[in-house]
C-alpha cells in the first residue's frame, strides 16, 4: 500500500494582536503544535478531541485552506506545504472536504444540481450535459432521488443535506476526503445512515478519509487508525483495534468513559472518569504535559515539569502515547484512575527529591 498523506511536525500559530494600525503581536495561539502522522491510501484516520483542541485547524491546514506555520504536508508523494494558489489548483482535484453543519455549508440560493456540479465547473470538467449526468449519478450513489436535481437545500432534511455535501465532495473523484465532524449535527438514526454510506463509498471508490469528531464512538466505527488530540498535540495514536482495547493516555480513557452507554446495566457497572473544567486557553497552554491541570493522575514535579514524548506501547506494533503514568489496563475498576495516580506519586516523590 502506498502512503497518500504524510504530515511531519505540522504547526499552525495564529497571532494575537493589539492595536488598530500597527497590530503589534502580543501572543500566539498555538492551535496545532507538532502533529505527525502517515495515512495510507484507502484507510481512515480518525481524529478525536474536545472543541478547541486544534483538530479542525489541522484539517484546514492539510487542505491548505490555511497556511501552516511550520512542518511539512506531503500529499501523494509531493510536498504541498508552501505551494502557491495556482500550483495548488490541480492538487485540489484530489482533496475534498465535508463539513459539520449541513445547514450552513450549502448555498441556500442555489439548486442542488448546481451545488453538486460546482467542483466540476471550477475544475472545468465536462460539458453541461456531462455534468448533469454526473450529478444525477452522484445523487443516486449517495441515496437521493436523481429527480431532486432542481430542488433547493431547504427542501431536504439534515441527513439528506449531508448526503448532498458528500455528493459534492465525490463529484471530482478525489483521493482524499477530509470529513470535519460530518455527523455531529445529526440524529443518531441518521448518523448511522451517513456512517454506513461513508464506509460503502470508501470501499467502492477506494477513498482515503481524515475523519474528525469529538465522539470516540463514531470514530471507532469508521477508522483504521485513531489520533487523540489535546491542545494542538497528539496525546495518543494507534490502530483503532489497539487503542480501543487498551487506551494508555488518561485523556483517551476519559473520552472513552464520558460517552453514555446505551445499556443501563453496563452503564451503571462501569467506572466513569469525568474530567473537571474546560480545555485551557491555547494562548497560554499549561507547561510540560498540557493535560496536567485536568488529569486525575497528575503528579506534581513530574507532569508539570517534564513533557512526555510519544512512546511506543511495549509489544504493540502501532500504538503510541505521551504520558508518564499511563493506564495499566482497561477498563479501569473502581477508583483505579485515582489510586494508581497516588501510588505513582509516592514512587515519583523520591526521584523528584533526588533531582
Amino acid at each position, binding site marked *: 500500500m502506498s502512503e497518500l498523506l504524510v504530515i511531519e511536525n505540522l504547526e499552525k500559530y495564529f497571532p494575537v494582536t493589539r492595536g488598530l494600525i500597527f497590530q503589534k503581536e502580543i501572543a500566539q495561539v498555538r492551535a496545532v503544535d507538532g502533529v505527525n502522522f502517515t495515512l495510507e491510501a484507502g484507510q481512515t484516520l480518525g481524529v478525536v478531541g474536545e472543541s478547541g483542541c486544534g483538530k479542525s485547524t489541522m484539517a484546514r491546514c492539510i487542505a491548505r485552506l490555511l497556511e501552516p506555520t511550520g512542518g511539512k504536508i506531503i500529499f501523494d508523494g509531493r510536498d504541498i506545504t508552501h505551494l502557491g494558489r495556482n500550483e495548488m489548483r490541480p492538487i485540489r482535484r484530489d482533496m475534498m472536504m465535508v463539513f459539520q453543519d449541513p445547514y450552513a455549508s450549502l448555498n441556500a440560493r442555489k439548486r442542488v444540481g448546481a451545488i453538486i456540479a460546482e467542483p466540476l465547473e471550477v475544475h472545468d470538467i465536462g460539458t453541461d450535459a456531462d455534468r448533469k449526468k454526473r450529478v444525477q449519478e452522484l445523487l443516486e450513489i449517495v441515496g437521493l432521488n436523481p429527480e431532486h436535481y432542481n430542488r433547493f437545500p431547504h427542501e431536504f432534511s439534515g441527513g439528506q443535506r449531508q448526503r448532498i455535501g458528500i455528493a459534492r465532495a465525490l463529484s471530482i473523484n478525489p483521493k482524499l476526503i477530509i470529513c470535519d465532524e460530518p455527523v455531529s449535527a445529526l440524529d443518531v438514526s441518521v448518523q448511522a445512515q451517513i456512517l454506513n454510506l461513508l464506509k460503502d463509498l470508501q470501499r467502492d471508490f477506494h477513498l482515503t478519509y481524515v475523519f474528525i469528531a469529538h465522539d470516540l464512538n463514531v470514530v471507532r466505527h469508521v477508522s483504521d487508525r485513531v489520533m487523540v488530540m489535546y491542545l494542538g498535540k497528539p496525546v495518543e495514536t494507534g490502530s483503532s483495534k489497539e487503542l480501543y482495547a487498551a487506551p494508555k493516555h488518561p485523556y483517551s480513557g476519559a473520552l472513552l468513559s464520558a460517552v453514555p452507554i446505551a445499556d443501563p446495566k453496563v452503564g451503571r457497572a462501569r467506572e466513569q472518569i469525568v474530567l473537571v473544567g*474546560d480545555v485551557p486557553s491555547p494562548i497560554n497552554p499549561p507547561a510540560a504535559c498540557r493535560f496536567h491541570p485536568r488529569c486525575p493522575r497528575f503528579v506534581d514535579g513530574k507532569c508539570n515539569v517534564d513533557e512526555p514524548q510519544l512512546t511506543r506501547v511495549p509489544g504493540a506494533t502501532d500504538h503510541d502515547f505521551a504520558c508518564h503514568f499511563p493506564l495499566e489496563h482497561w477498563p479501569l475498576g473502581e477508583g483505579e484512575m485515582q489510586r494508581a495516580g497516588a501510588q505513582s506519586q509516592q514512587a515519583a516523590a523520591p526521584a523528584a527529591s533526588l533531582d
Partner: protein
Amino acid sequence: MAILEVQDLNTRFRTDDGIVKAVSGVSFELERGDTLGVVGESGSGKSVTFLTVMGLLDPRHAEMTGSVRFDGEEILGLGNYRLRSIRGKRIGMIFQDPMTSLNPVKKIGWQLEEAVRIHEDVSRSEARRRALEVLEEVEIPKASTRIDDYAHQFSGGMRQRVMIAMALINKPEVLIADEPTTALDVTTQAQILRLIKKLQDEHEMAVVMITHDLGVVAELANDVLVMYGGRIVESAQVDDLFEKPEMPYTWGLLGSLPRVDIEVERLEQIPGQPPSLLRPPPGCAFNPRCAYTFDRCRAELPELRPAEGKSDHHFRCHLDGGDRARIWAEKQAALAASMRSAG
C-alpha cells in the same frame, strides 16, 4: 400522587398546507423525584409535547386538547397570568442551545436575579445572594466574579450550567430538559449529566430528559417514552426497555447507535426519513420504514398495548408476541456474532 399527569394530549398546528398533527394522544405520569427519558428523532413531537405541557405555544396557532394536571391542578389552557406562578417557579426548563436562550446584552447575574424577582418580592441584594448561591451549586468556578460576566464570556458547557442555575434558582419540583447536552462535547456532556443527577438528588426534583440519544436515557432515566410521528410508540422502565424492546422502531434506534463497548462491522440503520406530520402514512406511522411491515400495519393504527407479563411496559405494534421475541433474539444473536468476528 403524580406531580405531572398528562392525559390524551393532542397538539395540532394550522398551517397554509393543512393541519400538522404534532402530538397525538400522548398520556403519561411523572412521579415526584423520578426521571423520565423522552426519546425520538427530530420531528417526533417530543419537544412540542412539553412546550404544550408548559403552555408555551400560542393558542392562536396551535390547537391543544386533552388534560395536563400539575400537582392535581389542571393547567392546560390556563392564561399566562395564572401560569406564571407555576412556569419558571415550580417547573423549570432548560433548552438545547444555551447561547440563544441567554440574553447577550445583560450580565448573567442580572438574568438570574430577574428570575427570582419575577416570582418573589425580594430585595436586589437578596436576589443577588440567591444568584451567587445557585451559581456555586452548579459548580461554576469563581462564581463571585463570573456573576458579572456576559454570556459570550462563557464556554458552551459553562453557559449550559448558567441555564441550569436559572432553571433551579426557584427550586422547581419538575425540571424539563430539552436536549440539554446535544450541542456539547462528550466530556462536557458527562459533566452536565452528572450535575443534573446530583442536583436532582439534592432537590428531590422530577426530571424530564428529552433527547435523541438512547445513551443519555440509559444513563439518567428511570422510565422511558419512545416517540414517533407524534405518538408514544413504546413506554417502559429503563431496564426493561433495553433488555427487551418490543417495537421495531426502538430496535432500530438501539442498533443505529455506535457503542464504545461493542464493536460491530456495520451499524443497523433505519432507512428513510421520519414521517410528515402533515400527511402521516395510514396505519402505523412507522410502516414505510419498518422491515416487518405487513398489510395490517398499512391499514390500522396499532393500539398501545401492554407487553406480556409487564404492567408498565407498553408498545404499539401489530406483530404478535412470538414473532417479536424471535426477531429480537435473532438481532441479539447477530450482534453477538458480529462482536466475535470483530475480535
